[in-house]
């Protein structure tokens, strides 16, 4: 299963980004082997409007079923729910730690 985290940069050592729709990167990792991860630039970050639903589309296309982030807006929340992606809010710190903690929980 794939897990996504918002991220301030393109590596596992970056921080979990506060915003979902407008974060710089998503880190998509396989929960069975988190060393197998893919950083993707968030093209929704520069959208004039609707960054939230757009970002949900992006991580859905990458097969994410779980999202780690600080906060999800109401539009994004609706879209994530429709895609069947579980949003875990209130996450901060290093992306690597956040994903590991969630996976090993």
């Amino acid at each position: 299963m794939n897990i996504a985290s918002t991220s301030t940069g393109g590596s596992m050592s970056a921080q979990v980004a506060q915003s979902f729709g407008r974060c710089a990167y998503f880190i998509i990792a396989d929960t069975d082997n988190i060393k197998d991860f893919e950083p993707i630039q968030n093209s929704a970050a520069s959208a004039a409007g609707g960054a939230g639903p757009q970002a949900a589309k992006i991580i859905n296309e990458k097969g994410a079923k779980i999202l780690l982030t600080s906060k999800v807006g109401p539009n994004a929340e609706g879209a994530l729910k429709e895609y069947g992606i579980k949003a875990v809010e209130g996450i901060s710190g290093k992306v690597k730690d956040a994903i590991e903690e969630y996976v090993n929980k």
Partner: protein
Amino acid sequence: MKKIAVASGKGGTGKSTVSLLFALILSEDYRVKLIDCDVEEPNCHLFLEGPVKKQEPVKIFSPGFDLNKCTRCKKCEEVCEFNALVVTEKKILHFPELCHNCKGCLIVCPVGAVSDSYRVSGIVYDKSIDKKLSLRYAEQNIGEAKASPLIEAIKKDIQKDVQIVIYDSPPGAGCSMVETVNNADYVILIAEPTPFGLSDLKVTVEVLKKINVRTGLVINSSQKDNSILTDYASNIGLDILLNIPYSKEFAREYSRGIIVPDIFPGLKESVKELIKRL
């Protein structure tokens, strides 16, 4: 027909005051229509009394989706510039507060699954004030996220015999202001001689430059020393049209809902002279 918009970056600088003053003064000589484009917070009607002649709902496009016809091809989602649609296996999510009512989804759907449906975004009122002056204003429905569609509607269908149209703009330099000044022949900017006034004026001037419309400045609550505004105006070649001083007497009447142009000596003459140049 001369169309004049009254705008300012900052709120509370006197847009409505100036719009009302101009409307009252100019309607002595011309047939004037004042349009209060601040549909989220209209106030001109509080100062002008008269019977409501017309009252009409404004409908804006809001797509509906027939999920049985829909093949989930996602063409609507792709065409939507505003990310207002999310197509999933189960359903189609439409976010009305992101939607710009452009009908792109309706046009692009290959199987006719998008319906041409509408919702009421507000009510437009036409009030007749006296023989030569009429007022149009609107009340936007609660929960509507964007004012532009209603502003666009409120500016349409002006009676042919109107000689001067005054658009009273909402505050700010965003979509609502741009929609208001769109197709105006002249934009009167209002600012007070304060640092905040200057800062917001600059932003508005920058936006208007892109629209390429003739502009001039009215200094409201003008002081002995207005150099904070006049220096800027002369630097960028912005015409200063009028100075309206602060008047306690005017403010007192205003707070009771009465506009008295005569409180300012010489204002009537200046405005009548000015309109010939705009």
